[in-house]
């Protein structure tokens, strides 16, 4: 079954949640509504005849035109049918950037969604461990792959150096890791409470 029939089946099953579809450079792309994205991805994964069981990639695109919505991109593949489908979720930048996580469908989405969160600031609802992955947890300049992020960063070189020197070299363990070690007992009370609430992140 070709990707085009998947698009037709999607339109039949989800109707208006399928915003539009297009074939570009031989790849089939569908745009779907953010509120239904998880249902659609689960449907594509499990419905017989679709079986997009392999999540090739998760990424996002921020366009140069600031009016244009940011898009979260899922590259799906059906290993059995040797077919690819690209699914895009447009997110309006005036509202909080949030989509549903698919980690429970594909474990491979874990780090990929963390990277999108790190680089674009998109929050994935239901992700079990959403923290920065390539940048460090205390990185304060923003999300580097957004177009409003200058190539050399928001801070001056002097400020970046100052922050690097002021960083506490002991604070290399996350709260989660400290909770395992005996150092947990030596943590300040407020940090232990943050930990008890399930909060993640580095000890400031």
């Amino acid at each position, binding site marked *: 079954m070709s990707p085009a029939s998947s698009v037709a089946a999607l339109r039949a099953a989800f109707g208006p949640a399928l915003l539009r579809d297009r074939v570009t450079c031989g790849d089939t792309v569908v745009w779907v509504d953010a509120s239904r994205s998880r249902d659609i991805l689960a449907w594509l994964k499990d419905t017989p005849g679709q079986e997009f069981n392999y999540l090739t990639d998760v990424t996002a695109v921020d366009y140069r035109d600031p009016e244009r919505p940011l898009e979260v991109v899922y590259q799906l593949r059906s290993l059995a049918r040797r077919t690819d489908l690209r699914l895009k979720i447009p997110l309006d930048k005036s509202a909080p950037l949030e989509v549903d996580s698919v980690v429970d469908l594909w*474990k491979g989405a874990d780090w990929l969604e963390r990277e999108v969160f790190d680089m674009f600031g998109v929050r994935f609802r239901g992700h079990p461990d959403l923290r920065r992955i390539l940048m460090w947890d205390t990185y304060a300049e923003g999300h580097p792959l957004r177009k409003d992020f200058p190539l050399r960063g928001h801070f001056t070189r002097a400020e970046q150096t100052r922050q690097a020197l002021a960083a506490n070299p002991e604070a290399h363990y996350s709260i989660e890791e400290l909770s395992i070690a005996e150092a947990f007992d030596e943590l300040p009370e407020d940090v232990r409470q943050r930990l008890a609430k399930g909060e993640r992140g580095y000890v400031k």
Partner: protein
Amino acid sequence: MTPRTLEMALSTPSLDREGRPISIPLGVAGRGDPEDEFGAEPMLINIGPQHPATHGVLRLVVELEGETVVRCIPHIGYLHSGFEKLGEYRHYNQIIPLTDRTDYLSPMANNVCLALGAEKLMGIEITERCTVLRVIACEMSRIISHIVWLGTTGIDLGAYTPFLWTFYERERIYNLQEAWTGARLTTSLTRVGGMMADVPDGFEAGLREFCRTFPKSLDEVDTLFTRNGIWCGRTQGVGALSAAEAINYSLSGPMLRASGVDYDVRKDRPYLGYDSYDFDVPIGEHGDIYDRYRVRLEEMYQSTRILEQALDRLAKLKGAPINVDDPRVILPPKSRAMSDMEAMIFHFKQVMEGVPAPAGEAYMGIENPKGELGTYFVSDGTAKPVRWRIRPPSFINLACLPRLCEGALLSDVIAINASVDIVMGEIDR
């Protein structure tokens, strides 16, 4: 699953028949006994980022119970260079040097992937000789990458001799790469629509000689490893992953195939005419380190086969053009640019303005040594991409490391990490 014909009593099984992790209490630390002071207390160990067995700047925080790993938390990003951001400020051809530095053990294959992605976006059909040259570049990269993997993994498990033998072979193929591209790492071999250079004189003879003798050296490594008691004991049944899980974790390349999933981009989504070459794709069965080793070893033999066929085709295409005949995409020869007005204008336009791509987007995945390397371009019609995304195979393969390490012994963590075949330049980008 068929039982192995070769099984060693030395094995330290980490998974039982149902796939649940087995904890093996060793030493004084008895397990789960609240009376036992040592056993009740989990231990936290930090490995890396500056540790030779982490193959770069990977940091693992490992929670131990006795000697058994309860949890493994990887930390990455120490080598983050913002390549994808830099790419948004460069012309398509100017991105090629950046790809050298991602997976630095197979720079030529990365160059090919980027060029193919840009060509798919622009709708360029490359010449036949260029196709064959790119196949040679990809397969040479596969041998280079796998042979480094084999040597260093041997070292991680205490085998020093194979490392010397594999690095001797690596030196021979690196010399060929150097003769072609002028560099050992920063190859920048491809251009959008063609190649930086054709192969030099003597290259084909050299590569033929390599293809003739290399399998013999591989046989020697095979003799040292495949039936070696220590090697089997350290690798069989360790870090095993089932086929369903491997797919769920989005693994690719030898990691996926070792788990028994028959998927190779070269066969299933053919590019560069790979469907016209005669080669086999090795598939594992148990999904453990041993099968990953067997898959990678066999892939090197198969790459040699492909190289020989490609050399035959190259000889038939002697003198054929390597670049597309399109002055908007390919720079004119320097001599013409200096003497011919029109050629000079094209030269100037390309260097100053770059090659504009039509608005649209394209994803191109190729089978890199580590797995499926993808290039995803989004263009708004200008000469610089709006978004250049690398689908990094070792990043995605590494993401399942915590799962692989669950219930393994601490010393197995090193073996499992080695078996994933990671390159931090690509993971952190």
